[in-house]
């Protein structure tokens, strides 16, 4: 808690310093230049003037950014900067928070996800999510993976299915195997698919959660600090996995670990205190020569 307060205070001082040296208008213009990331092809996700309030707290301010497909986009910034809030806006997870008030636009392949007619179940199938702490269901490894496809009606198994003349056991096995292989877990669990998932190590549980997310064939995978609860070896496996997933999926990952962002992402967005996106660019540019002094101060650990 004290760390958060310190970061908030120092970042505020930094803002004041910048304001003294640059007029408000040109600062605004520069910020737009620093956050307007250019890339070839249409964006997978396009966010425009996104604002989020939790009650009176303005958690995200006028955030606009386009996210390219089949790449890893890292979101970094101090605690309370709004990066997780931003991530949760990308599949409308914030809808579940009563006091959250969201304005702006988020388009997935050009379609507005905040349109009242959006099918939320379908949206969250296309935009999956992996959380900080591994949270497998207290079920078998197999059931963890097949839960999603069953809920979405992609497969039918069990007694009822058999009575109705449909049993997708082979399809289920195929999905379980494919998902576990994609999540680099198959080798370790293929001989105990019916064991309880809670018996797996933390790193294995997290890869299982990624496999569970992959089982419904998403297009975008949102990850909220997916390796922060894991040891270095498990972290390394998750990082390798994220890089591999980016060949087929659009990955957006929130991380507190800047070295991790540097290692795994193609582009990095830096949010600073106050819910402001300050700079968004190729990851090597951000970590070698950021434009904003505030970003430089944040990533080098100096404030003010």
């Amino acid at each position, binding site marked *: 808690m004290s760390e958060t307060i310190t970061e908030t205070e120092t970042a505020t001082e930094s803002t004041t310093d910048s304001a003294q040296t640059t007029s408000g208008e040109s600062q605004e213009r520069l910020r737009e230049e620093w956050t307007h990331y250019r890339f070839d092809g249409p964006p997978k996700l396009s966010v425009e003037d996104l604002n989020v309030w939790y009650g009176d707290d303005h958690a995200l301010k006028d955030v606009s950014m386009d996210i390219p497909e089949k790449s890893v986009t890292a979101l970094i910034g101090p605690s309370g900067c709004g990066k997780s809030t931003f991530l949760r806006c990308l599949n409308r997870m914030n809808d579940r928070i009563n006091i959250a008030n969201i304005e702006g636009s988020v388009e997935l392949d050009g379609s507005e996800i905040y349109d009242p007619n959006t099918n939320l179940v379908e949206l969250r199938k296309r935009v999956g999510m992996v959380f900080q702490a591994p949270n497998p269901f207290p079920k078998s490894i197999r059931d963890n993976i097949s839960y999603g496809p069953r809920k979405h009606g992609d497969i039918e198994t069990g007694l009822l299915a058999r009575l109705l003349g449909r049993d997708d056991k082979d399809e289920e096995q195929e999905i379980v195997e494919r998902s576990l292989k994609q999540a680099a877990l198959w080798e370790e669990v293929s001989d105990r698919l019916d064991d309880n998932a809670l018996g797996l190590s933390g790193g294995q549980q997290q890869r299982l959660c990624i496999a569970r997310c992959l089982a419904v064939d998403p297009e975008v995978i949102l990850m909220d600090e997916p390796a922060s609860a894991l040891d270095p070896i498990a972290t390394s496996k998750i990082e390798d996995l994220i890089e591999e997933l980016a060949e087929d999926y659009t990955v957006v990952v929130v991380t507190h670990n800047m070295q991790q962002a*540097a290692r795994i992402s193609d582009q990095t967005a830096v949010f600073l205190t106050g819910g402001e996106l300050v700079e968004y660019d190729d990851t090597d540019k951000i970590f*070698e*020569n950021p434009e904003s002094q505030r*970003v*430089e101060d944040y990533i*080098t650990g100096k404030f003010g």
Partner: protein
Amino acid sequence: MAEDRVESLRADVIAFGRVVEGRFRQALTAVDTFDPELADEIIDGDAEINQRYLALEGECIDCFALGQPVAGDLRLVTAAFKILTDLERIADLATNLAALAETLVGDDTGETFAAVPLVEIGEFAAAMLDDALHAFAEGDAELCKGVASRDDRLNERCAAASATIIRQLVEYSGEADSPIAAAPAAAREVLVLVRDLERVGDHAVNVAARTYYMFEFDDALLY
């Protein structure tokens, strides 16, 4: 803590650079005054320079491994890592110079080459190093460009000096009582020395180029 480490590395590189510059200037004095004792001192001191160089290189590696620097810090540690090598090479060249001072005294032929302004050329190179170190210490990008732009002039002066020595060799080759004809080995040494002075300038340009990259994120001066 990490910030202190990078700042301390910066100060150490500057201090090391100033020591190297001092050795180089002393070596020029040894050549100028045919002072074998001073030359010995410089040659003996090279081990200490090498030790200091290795310690600073180790400090750069520690900065990478332990501090995982980014942005300006990363550019500083990367530049320092490369600059240290150039500085160590300049110290080696100073040792060569000192060794030559001893040769010239031994052969008593140094004055034969009085027509070649060796010390003046050396001081020109030393001034380039001085400015490159000043630019590193102060973050002066314009000064970096100034150092790079003087390299052509140094090269011209070195080429002219070499031409003078070769001309003398040719002109006096038939005169048995000419000192230069009596000591062709010394002539060769002086030619090597001229080349070394030119290299000191190249290393000074490298220091300036890395400094320019460090402050401007621009490798324009590197090649």
